[in-house]
């Protein structure tokens, strides 16, 4: 009879627990090495750039550091003015010392060829500032005391309290001002947060519009895809394969081709209108405007995103056993009740997967709305693209993108609470 208190050991005397642990650790390590390439790839090409981009939304050193692109040398700039800001609280009337600091900093800017950069940074928040910096820097070396008068002689806008507030805000590289701008807010002369002028408010409206339009398109896709997917899942294979081709063919066609086809079909001199006029259903003067407006956006996007709803629904409906519905019918359920209580609940995971796919894709669409949406074809992604490529205000683009990303994550969390993410089935 062995002593029961002695720990179990392997043949070579190692405790069994430790041996098991080391064996499992080895297996875990091997598994980790298997996913390591993917992990490295995702980190390098996906997580790192996105993090860097999001970092830009709160960090913009345009007013604090000048980096020479050729040599990579970083020089602190606007040092004197930043020192003045540190000594004087917000709302202080800029005095002679402030203007002197500004003049000294402008001289350095001129040497570094950086006035345009600094001006651009201020221009993000106060239009018209960029040329004030470039002009003032050109004559900075010639400025004589008293500096206040000399600088105001160049341009009386230098006395604008709003400009000083913007410079104060920009004097720290980390700022939330880009998030304020992305929510149609700004800081007034004493630094408190206020709404921007009514005729410049655009972002909140576009966030709302993007959200509502994406929800509508998701719902329309669901309405259209549900019967198609059901038909595909219940027909015998040789018929359903043919129908499947009809679903996949547009799916494989280029996005631009599909978008342009809708233009050809729907425009007022297009196929649909021409046929209606030819058959006498429409008067030539009353052609229907179906494109270059919200209608066009909804039609084209619903069509483009439809396969993303059909495929998950189909793969969930395919394995559903028809005998459940038959059993319900034989127990006296009407066809509507059998559908509502037996069939439909089994397809919910597919609806969830399809809706999530369509919705998240729709929120990020901007090429299609830009081409077919006319004046209403502005979604929030169009403005992100605009700030990335045209206005070059990457910090604002990053702030808008971060808000969009945050909104999607909140919706995802809600979805998880309501439906449960483990109910999601793609097949």
């Amino acid at each position: 009879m062995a002593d029961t208190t002695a720990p179990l050991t392997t043949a070579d005397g190692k405790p069994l627990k430790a041996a098991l642990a080391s064996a499992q650790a080895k297996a875990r390590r091997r598994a980790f090495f298997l996913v390591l390439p993917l992990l490295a790839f995702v980190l390098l090409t996906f997580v790192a750039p996105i993090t860097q981009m999001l970092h830009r939304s709160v960090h913009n050193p345009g007013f604090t550091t000048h980096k020479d692109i050729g040599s990579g040398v970083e020089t602190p700039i606007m040092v004197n003015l930043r020192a003045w800001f540190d000594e004087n609280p917000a709302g202080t009337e800029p005095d002679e010392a402030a203007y002197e600091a500004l003049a000294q900093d402008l001289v350095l800017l001129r040497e570094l060829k950086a006035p345009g950069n600094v001006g651009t940074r201020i221009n993000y928040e106060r239009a018209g500032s960029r040329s004030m910096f470039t002009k003032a820097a050109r004559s900075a070396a010639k400025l004589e005391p008293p500096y206040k008068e000399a600088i105001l002689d160049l341009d009386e806008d230098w006395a604008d309290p709003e400009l000083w507030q913007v410079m104060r805000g920009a004097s720290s590289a980390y700022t939330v001002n880009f998030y304020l701008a992305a929510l149609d807010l700004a800081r007034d002369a004493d630094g408190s947060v206020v709404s921007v002028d009514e005729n410049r408010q655009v972002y909140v409206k576009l966030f709302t519009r993007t959200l509502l339009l994406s929800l509508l398109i998701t719902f329309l896709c669901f309405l259209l895809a549900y019967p198609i997917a059901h038909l595909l899942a219940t027909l015998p294979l040789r018929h359903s394969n043919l129908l499947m081709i009809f679903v996949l063919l547009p799916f494989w066609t280029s996005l631009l081709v599909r978008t342009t086809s809708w233009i050809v079909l729907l425009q007022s001199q297009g196929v649909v209108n021409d046929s209606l006029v030819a058959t006498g259903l429409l008067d030539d003067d009353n052609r229907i405007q179906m494109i270059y407006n919200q209608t066009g956006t909804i039609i084209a996007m619903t069509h483009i995103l439809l396969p993303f709803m059909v495929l998950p629904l189909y793969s969930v409906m395919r394995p559903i056993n028809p005998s459940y519905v038959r059993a319900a019918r034989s127990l006296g359920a009407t066809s509507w009740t059998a559908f509502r209580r037996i069939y439909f609940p089994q397809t919910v995971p597919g609806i969830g997967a399809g809706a999530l796919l369509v919705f998240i894709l729709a929120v990020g669409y901007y090429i299609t709305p830009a081409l077919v949406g006319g004046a209403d074809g502005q979604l929030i992604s169009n403005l992100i693209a605009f700030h990335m490529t045209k206005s070059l205000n990457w910090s604002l683009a990053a702030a808008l993108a971060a808000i969009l990303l945050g909104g999607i994550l909140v919706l995802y969390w809600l979805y998880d609470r309501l439906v449960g993410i483990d109910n999601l089935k793609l097949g």
Partner: protein
Amino acid sequence: MKKTLVLTTALTSLAYGASAQEVTVMSWGGAYTKSQVEAYHKPFTAETGISINSVDADNPATPIKAQVEAGNVTVDVADVEFSDAVRLCDEGLLEEIDLSMLPAAPDGTPAADDFIEGALQDCAVANIVWSTVYAYNTANVEGTPMTMADFFDTEKFPGKRGLRKSAKATLEMALMGDGVPAGEVYDLLETDEGVDRAFAKLDEIKGDIVWWEAGAQPPQLLADGEVVMSTAYNGRIFNAAVGEGQPFEIVWDGQILDFDLFVVPKGAPNKDEAMKFIAFSTDTQRLADQASWISYGPARKSSGALVGLYSDGKTEMAPHMPTAADNLGNALVNNFEFWVDRDAELNERFNAWLAN
């Protein structure tokens, strides 16, 4: 992060294999790139043996910032609009260009005096003058639109209008359509009242506007009959009308002149060859040659006299140039300083106006 950028850059530059005898030139595509290939690229390769790799973008200014900041520059020369050239230069993303290397005119006038005022910048050399005009399809318009006011008059000339979906050029045209003479447009746009007035004018025809974004769209919209009039880049209308026989007429009243300029992104792999290419392409003869492929005006005064026939061999180019004397009656020169300053603000307001 920096390290990974350096690493990927090193890898890509290995992949590209820096051959010293090549220049990558990025331009706008379509008929415009074709004109540059014929007038600049082919003769340059013939003369120097340096081959040219021509690539296109919707707007070549767009990739420059990303490429330079990532330290992965693949473009040596880019053809960009004026305000972009100034802004990119300000942000330190462009190489400075030594203007003394530009050849003098045949009569000995130094380049600095031969180029049109404003065509030479610290980091950019202009090659063409193009303009935003409005054109109409004669098949769909009864009568003859003559002025910018006619473009905004949907009672006299019923039908839809095409406009570029951006504040630039649109606001100026709205003011000119409201009767403001070209010379006063920018002074007025500096004020809030002026901007309000421009948007009020646009409001009058808002329901009749079809917005376009790419230069190839207006000729298409006009040909389809989707719009009866549209603003457009003048060269595109010329090519559709003369090259393809479309019934389009340009109205030069209120045209807005702008430069396109050659720039060299900071850290371009073949900087020396790029500079050589710019000096070669912007000499008097090359600029005149380009005009026989597309109706954009040369940026040198001395090229004007050498502009000959269109590539069809029978159309005189001179009268189709935006810079022709007859077309300059009420022309506006795009104020780049104004747009570099106010582009973001006015586009924000423009986007808000569109969304309402």
